[in-house]
């Protein structure tokens, strides 16, 4: 108890890439999708290895926070901190997750998802 050093070292290490920050600048749902422009990828070259990889991943097609974490082999919480930074710095654009309120908006989305499933 209270040992500063976990033998497996996995308490601190995951957050080393965020310099220890565990709180994202904004909450990002796990399924929210992110897109990087080509200009953003160029900018991310100077933002560090992890952020550059994330930008490259999100340039050809939109990727969810979950996909970014999985492809980057980063824990979800770490990916969320990095992605929130990149959104704040204009390197990623955040697209909305499903609407949570409003009958018409929710029903429209359900109808689109239903027709998409039927076409599978």
């Amino acid at each position, binding site marked *: 108890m209270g040992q500063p050093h976990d033998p497996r070292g996995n308490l601190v290490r995951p957050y080393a890439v965020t310099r220890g920050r565990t709180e994202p600048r904004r909450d990002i749902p796990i399924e929210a999708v992110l897109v990087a422009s080509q200009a953003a990828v160029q900018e991310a070259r100077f933002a560090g290895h992890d952020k550059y990889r994330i930008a490259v991943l999100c340039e050809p097609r939109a990727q969810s926070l979950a996909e970014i974490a999985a492809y980057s082999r980063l824990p979800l919480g*770490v990916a969320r901190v990095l992605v929130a930074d990149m959104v704040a710095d204009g390197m990623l654009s955040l697209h*909305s*997750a*499903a*609407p949570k309120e409003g009958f018409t908006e929710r029903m429209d989305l359900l109808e689109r998802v239903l027709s998409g*499933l039927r076409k599978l």
Partner: protein
Amino acid sequence: MDFASSERAGAQPKEITSAKIVVAGGFGVGKTTLVGAVSEIEPLTTEAVMTSAGQGIDDASKVPGKETTTVAMDFGRITMADDLILYLFGTPGQTRFWFMWDELIRGAVGAAVLVDTRRISDAFAPLDYFENRHLPYLVALNCFDGAPRYEPEEVREALAIAPQVPLIMCDARNRDSVKQVLVGVVEHAMRTLVAEQERGFPTPVG
């Protein structure tokens, strides 16, 4: 009026909407198999690292000192249009990670609780969870080869599934069967939404 500016607006990148459906159930019930049957990508795994300071760990003695636990969730993707993506998230199998379920169901369209008829009691905890949430869900009986077959009504009674919760049979390996499960989830979500609207008490999801 500047009509040219509205023409230019059409060239701006489209806003993309993502939706998710949650696939819940006990450990080894076939959640990842179900996701893989319809996903356009091999199911991916995302991991959340929890510490003893993390919220929602129901029994701190299971996480002594400052040890961490990794909670893994498998998920898949279906790109339905250039502005619409559906994600399918499997819940962590271990039922003590309820806090992770809370994050997964937030904003979800609905959920399917997958039940293995050979280990029916494994479904009690996931069903209890959804009974107390404002999320439309259905129960899907995964019919493994050689699994004891029950009539759906026997299972409904054994698991005390409420009459308004749909119950369907499926084969988690079969694409068409899984498609029917997901169609069932969305149709149930639509019925629930309409019923809420008619009662005049629209409740936000999650």
